[in-house]
C-alpha cells in the first residue's frame, strides 16, 4: 500500500496535476458562485457541477498523457515497485481525485448556501448527497479508461480514452435536464430512491474493483 501511495504522489507530480486540479476547481467555483447571482440561480450549481466533473475527468488521464509523451512507464519500471503497485497507485490517484471532487462540490454547496440561504432551502441535503454522483462518475470513467491505457498506452488510443469523458458529459446533461425527476421528491435522492442509490454505488464499486484487477493483469503483461 505504501508503494501505491508513492506512485499516486508521482502521478500528482508527473504533470503538475495537483496545481492543475486546484486551478480548475478554483475557476469553476468562482464561475459557479458568479452564476448563482445571475438569473440562472439554482441551475448554476448544476453547470458548475458538470464543469467540475469534466475538469476532473481531464485530470484523470493526465498522468497517462505524460506517460505517452515522456516515457514515464519506463521511469516507473526503474523504481523498486511491482507493476501491480503502479496500477494500484494509478487507481488510488483516481480515488484521490474523486475525493477532492467531492470535497470541492460540498464546498460549493455550502458556500452558495451561506451566500444565498434561499437558493437551495430544503434541497440542501439532497444536493449534499447528489455531490456523490461526481466521484461516482469519475471512478466509472477511470474504470473504463485505465485498463485500456494500461494495456496499449495513451498514445495509441487517445480518442478511445476520451470516450468515457464524452459519455460522462452526456449523462451529466441528461441529469441536469431531468433534475426535477431525479432530484425531486420522487427521484433517487429520496427515501423511495435510496435502494436504487445503494445498488448503484455497490455496482459502481464492483465495476471499479473488477477494472483494477483487469488493469493489473493487462499491465503485468505489457512490454514497456
Amino acid at each position, binding site marked *: 500500500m505504501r508503494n501505491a501511495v508513492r506512485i499516486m504522489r508521482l502521478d500528482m507530480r508527473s504533470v*503538475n496535476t495537483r496545481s492543475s486540479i486546484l486551478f480548475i476547481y478554483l475557476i469553476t467555483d468562482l464561475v459557479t458562485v458568479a452564476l448563482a447571482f445571475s438569473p440562472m440561480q439554482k441551475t448554476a450549481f448544476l453547470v458548475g457541477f458538470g464543469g467540475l466533473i469534466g475538469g476532473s475527468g481531464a485530470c484523470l488521464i493526465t498522468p497517462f498523457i505524460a506517460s505517452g509523451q515522456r516515457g514515464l512507464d*519506463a521511469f516507473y519500471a526503474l523504481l*523498486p515497485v511491482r507493476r501491480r503497485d503502479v496500477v494500484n497507485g494509478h487507481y488510488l490517484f483516481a480515488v484521490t481525485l474523486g475525493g477532492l471532487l467531492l470535497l470541492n462540490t460540498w464546498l460549493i454547496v455550502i458556500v452558495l448556501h451561506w451566500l444565498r440561504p434561499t437558493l437551495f432551502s430544503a434541497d440542501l441535503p439532497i444536493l449534499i448527497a447528489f455531490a456523490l454522483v461526481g466521484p461516482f462518475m469519475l471512478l466509472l470513467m477511470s474504470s473504463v479508461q485505465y485498463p485500456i491505457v494500461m494495456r496499449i498506452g495513451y498514445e495509441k488510443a487517445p480518442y478511445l480514452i476520451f470516450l468515457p469523458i464524452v459519455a460522462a458529459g452526456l449523462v451529466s446533461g441528461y441529469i441536469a435536464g431531468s433534475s426535477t425527476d431525479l432530484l425531486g421528491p420522487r427521484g433517487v435522492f429520496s427515501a423511495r430512491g435510496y435502494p436504487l442509490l445503494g445498488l448503484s454505488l455497490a455496482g459502481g464499486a464492483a465495476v471499479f474493483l473488477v477494472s483494477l484487477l483487469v488493469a493489473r493483469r493487462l499491465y503485468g503483461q505489457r*512490454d514497456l
Partner: protein
Amino acid sequence: MMVTGEEENLIVVDGLAKQYKEFTLHGIHFHLPAGYIMGMIGPNGAGKTTTIKALLDMIRPDAGTISLLGAATAADRIALRDSLGVQLDTTLYPDYWRVKQVAKSLRSFFPQWDDAYFDQLCTDMEIPLKTKYKSMSRGTQVKLQLAAALAHHPRLLILDEPTAGLDPLARDELLTRLQDFIADGQHSVLLSTHLTGDLERIADFLLYIRGGRQQFFGHVDDLLGQYVLIKGGLADLTPALRAALIGLRTHSEGLSGLLAVDQTVGLPDTLLQESITLEELMIYFGRGPHA
C-alpha cells in the same frame, strides 16, 4: 584483469530470446562479474536496448533466464532495484521537473538515496538546478539521469548510450567516474554505446550483437585478437580470400577486409595484416556476413 570461477556474477543471461513482428532477439548469453565493465555494441536495431529492457523486466522474454544481482525472478529483481542504477536512452522525467523534483520523487523509493551525494554529482556534472527537464540539452538530461542512477549507491549500473550528447570533456569525466565506480571490485557497469573508442578505453568485456544475434561475448582483447585487418592489391583477391574476408571493400587501389587470425596462415606477403580497433570491427562486420 583476469576472471576466475570464484568471482560473483552480477549479471548472468542465458539463452535470452524475444520475438517481435519485425525483429527477433536470438539466444543472447553473457555474464558480468563484479568489478568489471562490460560494453554492449552493435548497429542501430541490433537488439541492445531490447536486451537492456529484458534485464530491467520492462519486457517479458520468450525464452531464456536472467539473473541480476543474484535474483532470478522478476519479483526478486524488482525488490533489488535499490542496488541497481539505470540510465536509459530516452527522456525519462516529466517535462517541467527540475533537479529538486527528481530528488524529491526518487528519495522516497530508494532507502539508500543520498541527497548530499546527489547534490555533489549535480554540481560536479554542472547540471543546472533551475532549468526544467524539457529545456535541458540531451547531454544534460543524460547527466541528470546518471546522477539519479548513482545517488542511491547502487552495486550495478546499467547505462544505455550514456555518452550520447556529452561533450568530450564530460565524456572523459564520465568514463573516469565509471572506472572509479568499479575500482573496489564489488561494483560493475554494463553500458551500451556506439562510441567504440570509449569502450576500448574502459571495457573489460564486450557483447557484440548484430541483427538480433550475438556475434561475440568475451574479453575485449580476445575479440580484437581474433581478427586482423587485411589490405592489399586486387590481384591478391583469390576466390578463397573473397569468401573468407568479412566486410570486403574493394576500390581502385586495392582491397581491405577483416580476416580471422586462424585463417591468415599461408597468405601472400603482398597482403598487409594490421591489428584492428573496435570501430573497424563494427564497420567491417556491418558490411558483410560473419564468416
